[in-house]
């Protein structure tokens, strides 16, 4: 069941991300990019299987039944990177508005 639900969630995240990416308003496109990133992270964590225990070893004994710690490390890295890139695009957006006075992609590309 949860597999179906996860697939549904990730699918709709990507779907709505695409929809947002194609909006006329540039800020909405950026929301789409962020949702893509979130969806990819959720997908990665799902691929880890999360059937084991929390990947912290208490008491120093070696457990091998933990959840995949590698995907968690990857996603952790991805989250911090997306923080950096998201703020970068936001500032870029600010500069686009400064320069062109609009965030309407139709007007930015010279279409009516």
């Amino acid at each position, binding site marked *: 069941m949860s597999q179906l639900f996860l697939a549904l969630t990730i699918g709709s995240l990507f779907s709505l991300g695409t929809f947002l990416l194609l909006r006329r308003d540039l800020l909405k496109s950026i929301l789409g990019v962020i949702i893509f990133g979130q969806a990819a992270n959720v997908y990665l964590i799902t691929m880890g299987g999360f059937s084991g225990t929390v990947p912290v070893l208490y008491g120093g004994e070696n457990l091998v039944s933990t959840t995949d710690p590698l995907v968690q490390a990857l996603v952790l890295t991805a989250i911090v990177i997306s923080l950096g890139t998201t703020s970068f695009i936001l500032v*870029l957006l600010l500069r686009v508005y400064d320069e062109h006075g609009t965030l309407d992609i139709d007007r930015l590309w010279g279409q009516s």
Partner: protein
Amino acid sequence: MELNFISLAIIVFLPFLAAAITFLIYPLLKEKTAYFSALIALTCASLILTLFGTTGSTSVPLLSSLDVHLRFYVDGLSLLVGLLASGMGVLTFIYSLGYMKNQRHSPTYYAALLVFMGSMLGIIFSADLIFIFIFWELTSLSSYFLIGYFNNENSSKSAAKKALIITSIGGLLMLLGFLLIHSITGTFDLSLLLSEPTSVQSSLRAHGLFLPTLVVIILAGASKSAQIPFHIWLPSAMVAPTPVSAFLHSAAMVKAGVYLLGRFHPILSGDEWSLILLTIGIITMTLTALFAVISTSIKELLAYSTASHIGLMLMGFGIPITLTGVSPSLGFVSGSFHLLTHALFKAALFLIAGVLACQLGIKTFSDAKGLWVKIPLIAIFAVFASLCMAGIPLTSGFYSKELLFQGVYTLANNYGGIWWILPLLSIMASSLAVVYSLRFIMMFFGSQPSHKKDVQPLPPSMVFPISILILLSLIVAISPSIAIDFISHSSSSYPPGHLPIHIGIPDHVTPPLLMSLSSLVLGVALYTKHKQISKATTSVLSSKHLSIDSIYSSIILSLENYGLALISKTEKTSMRTHIIWLIGTLGMLPAITLLYLHQNISISSSLPHQPAFLIVLLIIILGTISVARSNSHIMGVLFLSIVGFMIAVFYLLSNAPDVALTQLAVETLILVIFLVIIGKLPAYYGEASPIRVRLDTILSIFIGTVVFFAVIISTSSFAPKDIVAFFSNRASYPIGSTENIIFDYGGGTNIVNVILVDFRALDTLGEISVVALAALSILTLLHSRNQGGVK
């Protein structure tokens, strides 16, 4: 004798180093930089001389894990061409001092020439096919700079571009040939290939790749050596400064193609090889000789005649080794020998043309008459070099041409029939050579000097290189056997001929001698009619629109137009179109895979079932829908935050507390940044049109469906996770260890953190560098805000 790797490395790489130094010392030395460069070339030449008589290969691994080695190979052919390239380099640099006196001096000129010389020596001595390719392209590149040296003029630019395009297409073909060879033999090592040439050829034949390899390598050589139909770049390249032409277009660059073919002669020679080379050679030799006869400018004549003489060399290489009655290496030796003699007299002629252009301002034949009076010494040199070019008996050009005549005559005699066309066309071409040589000579004679201007005394730096070249030609003319002995070393890969190659003053009448004499007589006869010939040929050529030059320019023009059309179709459309194409393609690829996979989609039970999951996921979906439906910026951002926080809860439920914590903190911060920025942005724009929304919805649903099935398939079974066991064993401490300092274990109980700071620390370093770079870029962007951007 052991090859000295160090000296070979110096020979190849010293010019490159010197090219870099040129820019540093130019402010100090000014035009004396020419002497510095000449010194470098002299060093290379003398190092090559110390290698004289050695044969073999040497190598040093550069990246042994990738099988990249720096390999060198030395034999008679490479020593000959290498000595020519470096020796001509010395003379060119000295000559440049005088020639460039009236021109714009710049360190770029010397640096480009040095880089050219280095890459030429690299082609010659490298034994690794990839290195040969790299150096080959480097010669094209540096010649681009040298031809476009007077780059204010449009003609220079287009000529440089033409040479670059044609020769680098040839280079790519060569790379293709090398890769074909590699795919069969598994090696890029030339010395290995040359040690067993016949087995290389037979395995190429066994895979049916012999003919393709042969064709692309010959085309590569022909493009570099300006053979028909690639000859068009050479006359255009004559806009280059004359020393450059003397170096690149007589002794070095065009000889790279000849060298390549000579190098691969042992591996590729056979019936197909002979047929193709003889055809290209004879066509080029005859036609370009005709072009030389009708050309109006002095340098153009020399350029066409160079192409013609190289055609002769290729014919030499094309003469089969199986002919009866002559030594098997006859063809190879005649080609190499002509390479030497041609370089000597043609470079001298180019330098003389440079004297005329630079000191007297004479560039075309119509300006030149009776120059004998003004520059008597140069006139003597010119007459001698032209006689060599014409192949007048007892000059250096005569002997090399005799060998070729002997070859084609024996060939025709052996096979008979249609093959007699070769000796006939050879006679025709060499009589045309006599005609254009006479044209060159006659510039110095005639009624009266057309120029009133007084001639300044010639600078010795210009006369000296010419006299050296003339002297060398004279030595070869007097004792051709020295050169022949030298070259014969390089043909050691052939069975020793029972019939030695005879060269010397002819003591009895032979068919080749008859051919030489008849072409001489025919040539003189044609010269008296050459004005009519020019008129007739020019009218024939101009009436037809099939000249290769116009084909070339129409191809280039249509490519340019096509590129412009493509840009206006793709680049100038809106971001929406780009995204639709990108996302659509990205979705199509997995969709096609899914359709053809026919995999049974199964629901796995390996993922745990929790009711809490369903609630969280439901909120995530609903939140995202609200983001999409929101009609103000602030609502969109707030809903996005809700989604982010819910995803953090999802991480917590999937046993990833570290990730959850980070997600929570990051979401908070992103919300703050969003709120700060939104205040400075305009209000929401609303939707463009309902049709667009519907179209986008279709694409979105498509993408969502593809992802849905991809997730289902990829989560239906999990591979056994050895890597999990590795990390959980290694993260903590070794049990029962008594050591005090431990490297292989992480020493922490939080496996995720240990992975981040220890096992995959380099990833983390990369990640924080991204964050740092983002911060710096943001500061730069904000800083540029108030500095008057383009509105």
